[in-house]
């Protein structure tokens, strides 16, 4: 366990040995099944979230972040199939769970918010209807009680005059307010795990800060576990206890947030961190990672990052590195120390 230099004030939820993880993904491999063969999208992904912990999942688009989230929700796109691995939610494997049971898991134990809250909200129904649907299904609340709870939820996510806003439609809210409504829906049945897939990417920075503060507050008050998916590393650093970095469908590095940001070891993690535009940065060309991530289905002999890696050796191009484990760190690289 690595703590900050000034003594870490926050109680980092530690994983007591033997205690069950909220979520544990083990060796998850997913492929798109096509007529002319399988296209691999996730390879052997491991990820664990302890109760109350926030884990960040970062990587470029196409790295498999969202696919991982959708696998947990069991909402994989048509054609995507879990070839091997486990998705253990409180110890229960979701991979082969019948759909009828899965639908009682969604919303009640795990729920998800996405980048675009408009896709989560039905434009034809009032906010009340959408909030109470889940409550009446999972909690068997009668209409009046559900309405009360819905108003409470809107207040919880910081929507002014919640009672009168219940009868509003999604289009009457601004982007930030919609995301708050989507969050209210997601936490309506007090799930234990919230998956936030790029929840603030479509929002302005000032609104982003508010939504992040909201997620952080809910996490504290409701002891939520959070899987926070983002390509914004600075944001991940602010709120996550642990970080998993993915590249081309594989985990390349995972550790505590402190360790990842203060002492990154995988060349890809280092490059990603170097690319964040900073206010303190000098004028002049922005740092970049040359090349682009491999396309889906590209033949990946060796390390997928090798073609863009300045440290790559002959071995990196021919043989895929295995995920090494040292204390809290997971690292998949031949050359990184």
């Amino acid at each position, binding site marked *: 366990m690595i703590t900050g230099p000034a003594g870490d004030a926050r109680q980092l939820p530690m994983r007591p040995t033997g205690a069950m993880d909220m979520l544990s993904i083990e060796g998850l491999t997913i492929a798109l099944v096509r007529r002319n063969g399988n296209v691999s999208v996730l390879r052997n992904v491991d990820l664990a979230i302890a109760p109350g912990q926030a884990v960040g999942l970062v990587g470029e688009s196409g790295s498999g972040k969202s696919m991982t989230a959708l696998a947990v929700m069991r909402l994989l796109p048509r054609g995507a199939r879990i070839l091997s691995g486990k998705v253990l939610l409180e110890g229960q494997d979701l991979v082969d769970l019948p759909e009828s049971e899965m639908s009682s898991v969604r919303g009640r134990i795990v729920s998800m918010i996405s980048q675009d809250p408009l896709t989560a909200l039905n434009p034809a129904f009032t906010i009340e209807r959408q909030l109470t649907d889940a409550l009446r299904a999972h909690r068997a609340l009668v209409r009046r009680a559900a309405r009360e709870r819905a108003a409470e939820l809107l207040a919880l996510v910081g929507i002014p005059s919640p009672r009168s806003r219940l009868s509003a439609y999604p289009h009457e809210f601004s982007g930030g307010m919609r995301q708050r409504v989507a969050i209210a829906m997601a936490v309506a049945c007090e799930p234990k795990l919230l998956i936030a897939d790029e929840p603030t990417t479509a929002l302005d920075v000032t609104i982003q800060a508010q939504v992040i503060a909201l997620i952080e507050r809910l996490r504290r008050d409701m002891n939520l576990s959070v899987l926070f998916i983002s390509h914004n590393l600075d944001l991940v650093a602010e709120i996550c206890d642990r970080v998993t970095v993915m590249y081309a469908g594989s985990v390349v590095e995972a550790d505590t947030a402190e360790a990842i940001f203060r002492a990154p070891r995988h060349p890809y993690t280092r490059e990603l961190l170097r690319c964040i535009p900073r206010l303190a940065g000098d004028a002049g060309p922005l740092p*970049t990672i040359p090349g682009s991530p491999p396309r889906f289905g590209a033949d990946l002999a060796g390390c997928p990052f090798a073609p863009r890696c300045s440290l790559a050796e002959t071995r990196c191009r021919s043989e895929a590195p295995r995920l090494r484990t040292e204390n809290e760190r997971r690292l998949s690289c031949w050359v990184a120390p």
Partner: protein
Amino acid sequence: MSASPLLELVDIRKTYRLRAGLLARLLGREPAFDALGGITLSVLPGEVFGLVGESGSGKSTLAKIIARLLAPTAGSVVYRGEQVTALEGRALLPYRRRVQMIFQDSHSSLNPRKRIGRILGEALAARGVSRASRGRETEHLLETVGLGRFMLGRYPHELSGGQRQRVSIARSLAMEPELLIADEPVSSLDVSLQGQIINLLMQLCRNLGLTLIFISHDLAVVKRISSRIMVIYAGRIVECGPPDTLLNAPAHPYTQALIDALPKGIAGRDRQRRGRDAAPSATEAKPSGCPFLPRCARALAICGSRFPETMQLAENHSVACHFAAGAASASAKGIEQEG
């Protein structure tokens, strides 16, 4: 400012009429929304002018007015000393050629049914390049934006986001423009690719002597590349100045809020733990007042009733804020008394 400006906007206003009920229409009281409330600015040749603001602030409306894709409700657009506000039809074509726009979403700005070679070829044809030399010029354009000639036969959907944005840039260069307006050109790209596209734009500006208006909500990027930054809020200029001044000594509370809102990485963890201090006054301003009032922590009584006039704080630094103006005149008085 010695060089004469390339582009001048004088008191640009844009009002959108909103749909009104029958009664309101009969009474002639149609509700309207002021997207831009009097924007005056000038852009120097060869400059990278950064335009920052949140969604709904009027950034894109302003960009479209400059590109003459939208007509302003009032005010004038002056290019190289010539009025272009009222130009229509054929008379507008030379201006359209010199001022090119690059959009955020290259997916929707490139025709999905045309190959890249044809997309670029059509742009060249529009400039009047002969059929015979189009092939060579197309390849040259691709080379300029760092793409190979193998792109010619591809369709937009076959390209990655970064490659598509390069094609959009190549298409705008086909017109041999003088002024590029890039409206959030990298917002939909990954960080690792953002740098590539921005560096390309900067390199083009240098090598081809282009002027760039760069619109973004990312202060860190804008700061890095711009010679001047203008912050707009609710259709008004709230602050304008050189990047270092604006970011190290922001005068407007909104500029400060933008800086504070940027994620701070590992250093921001304490802030999250403490919770953010947000004490906005939450008072509604009259339409004549400062639009930032409801979110402002430094609001004065006057802010609710009168929009602050733009005040020059230094040669290149201006702000429209009653509080900042008060602070500036107080410190000026202090200096006088000391002297």
